[in-house]
């Protein structure tokens, strides 16, 4: 077996895993704090990619990504305030899934109406130029940036959740909403923040892909399936679990794709999820709570 090819697959796995990790962490934050399975995550990721597609030629790479993150975070707040928060409280769990699914369809088909179904690519001169050489492995700068942005963002997320009072408050709301209310945490404020974070992370994931791949309204569908698998394997709502599994799945996919077809890639991820569910139905990283 060709060693360089293996290294390339490995690098590719890290890049894929970084994108997945951004998406999965956002999904896990939203689930953990709001108890909402956000089925619109893929559509929001696609919106992020389109936002970056429009921003980057105007402002350049880094500012474009920041602008995208900010725009998407604001969109997250709007969705939370305008829709999710208004769901009637009884049976809200399954209804929130259906609501976000409806939302996904509105966004996705709206994008087709607005921008057409065809793929688009960022003009050559707006993409990050050059490449990195790691041994024999060539990594285009755009891909390397995905990893850099992901690691920086996830590091910041870790610090936010574990080292700041507001992050502690977010974890608090996810563990016991009533207790959070009693110590004076405003659930509305934390809910907005969680949606802003989650959707912002999806936006960043989309934005970093824009300079590397093509952008199209359907791009969210296939990727979100893998991200859902990641979140389930990691244990719904566990942010560290989601990030670790994201890199695992990125590797798995890179190698399954490298030695097989797109079909084997998808099937291997699905089978991995099923296998984990057989052994640990609550996911790899969720903890058994004593009643």
């Amino acid at each position, binding site marked *: 077996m060709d060693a360089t090819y293996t290294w390339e697959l490995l690098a590719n796995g890290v890049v894929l895993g970084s994108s997945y990790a951004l998406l999965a962490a956002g999904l896990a934050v939203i689930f953990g704090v709001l108890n909402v399975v956000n089925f619109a995550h893929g559509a929001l990721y696609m919106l992020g990619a389109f936002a970056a597609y429009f921003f980057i030629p105007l402002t350049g790479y880094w500012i474009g990504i920041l602008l995208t993150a900010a725009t998407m975070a604001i969109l997250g707040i709007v969705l939370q305030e305008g829709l999710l928060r208004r769901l009637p409280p009884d049976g809200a769990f399954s209804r929130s899934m259906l609501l976000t699914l*409806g939302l*996904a*369809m509105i966004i996705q088909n709206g994008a087709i*109406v607005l921008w057409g179904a065809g793929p688009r690519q960022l003009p050559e001169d707006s993409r990050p130029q050059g490449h990195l050489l790691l041994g024999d492995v060539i990594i285009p700068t755009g891909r390397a940036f995905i990893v850099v942005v992901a690691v920086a963002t996830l590091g910041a997320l870790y610090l936010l959740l574990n080292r700041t009072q507001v992050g502690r408050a977010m974890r608090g709301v996810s563990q016991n909403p009533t207790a959070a209310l009693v110590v004076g945490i405003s659930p509305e404020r934390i809910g907005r923040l969680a949606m802003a974070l989650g959707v912002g992370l999806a936006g960043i994931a989309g934005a970093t892909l824009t300079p590397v791949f093509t952008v199209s309204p359907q791009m969210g569908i296939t990727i979100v399936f893998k991200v*859902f*698998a990641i*979140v389930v394997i990691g244990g719904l709502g566990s942010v560290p679990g989601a990030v670790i599994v994201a890199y695992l799945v990125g590797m798995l996919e890179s190698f399954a794709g490298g030695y097989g077809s797109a*079909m084997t890639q998808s099937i291997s991820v*699905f089978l991995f999820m099923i296998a984990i569910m057989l052994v640990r139905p609550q996911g790899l990283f969720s903890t058994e709570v004593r009643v």
Partner: protein
Amino acid sequence: MTAALHVHEPEETNDVMSRKSSSPLHKWLGGRHLGPLLPTAAAIALVPAVVTNDYFIDVANLALTFMVLGTAFNLLYGYVGMLSFAQVAFVGIGGYASSWLVTHTDLWQPVAFLAGGGVAALVAAVVGAVTVRLSEGAFAIITLSFTLLCAVVAAEWTGVTGGRQGIFGLPAPSLSLGPVDLVADTPRSYYYLLAGFTVLALWAMQRLVRSSAGTVMIAIRDNEPLAKAQGYATNNYKLAVFSFCAFVTGLTGALHVFRLTTIDPSIFDFYLMQVMLIIVILGGAGTFWPVAYSAVLFAVLPEMLRMADEARLIVYGALLVLGLLFLPQGVGGFLRARAMNRQLRDMRGGRS
């Protein structure tokens, strides 16, 4: 409520449990619950006499298809509380399996159709064996992932599914037994085929819901641990209903694609899933007939509001969101709540 604690009227208590006896056949068909099925069947039978235009007959064909698909999804989500996004996958699996069997083997057509449902049920049994015991969220996610996986497989597994082109030019369903030779090659003749199937399927599903197993299904939805503590193998019930619904859905899928005479990976698109969701949510999850009737509405409505596919999906998405926000129990749930309030008022009134 405490006032109820000291009232005793034992005379009243016996006739609630004893039921009026009727003919065994009537009983087996579903007894006193048969109610709305007969008028519905009569209305279905009357359509060809009233509607002359073949185009509208085709719309009616779609309405029948949606009635079965919507009701099967309602059985899962409304009655057992399983939010399964795999229903659309079973439509596709049933469609692909029956198409492949008819085009690649000499299997008698009715058997090929049933086999379409059978394959869907078998796949459901395998997927369900792992997923029915998982949390609500994990179940929803895995079933959705499964549907997306099916789309990928249908597009890539060219040898069997025909890839992105799919399988086309499917023959009209025909039943030739000796001198009898029935071919469903026009929308009108297809309507008779679908109408028979729909009434049968609705009867079977209604029979299940009103049976003692149906009560267990509701019990599992309302409180699964208690059902376990009362000796019910809840996972087996869930698996059985999941597979049964997959069978009905797969069979409907087979009939659906043979009406269109073609199948390709787009069958796994969000469109059908979204239609099923809207039918059940706006009709009222957990109420039988309102869901069946709302299926008719959502088959006819888009034909009256002619618009591009994307625009229609946006409108449907918006309807779903608005329904969830403003009519969360659906029309059926609203009616049921009203009836229950009336019943409670009567009970309270009778007591004082």
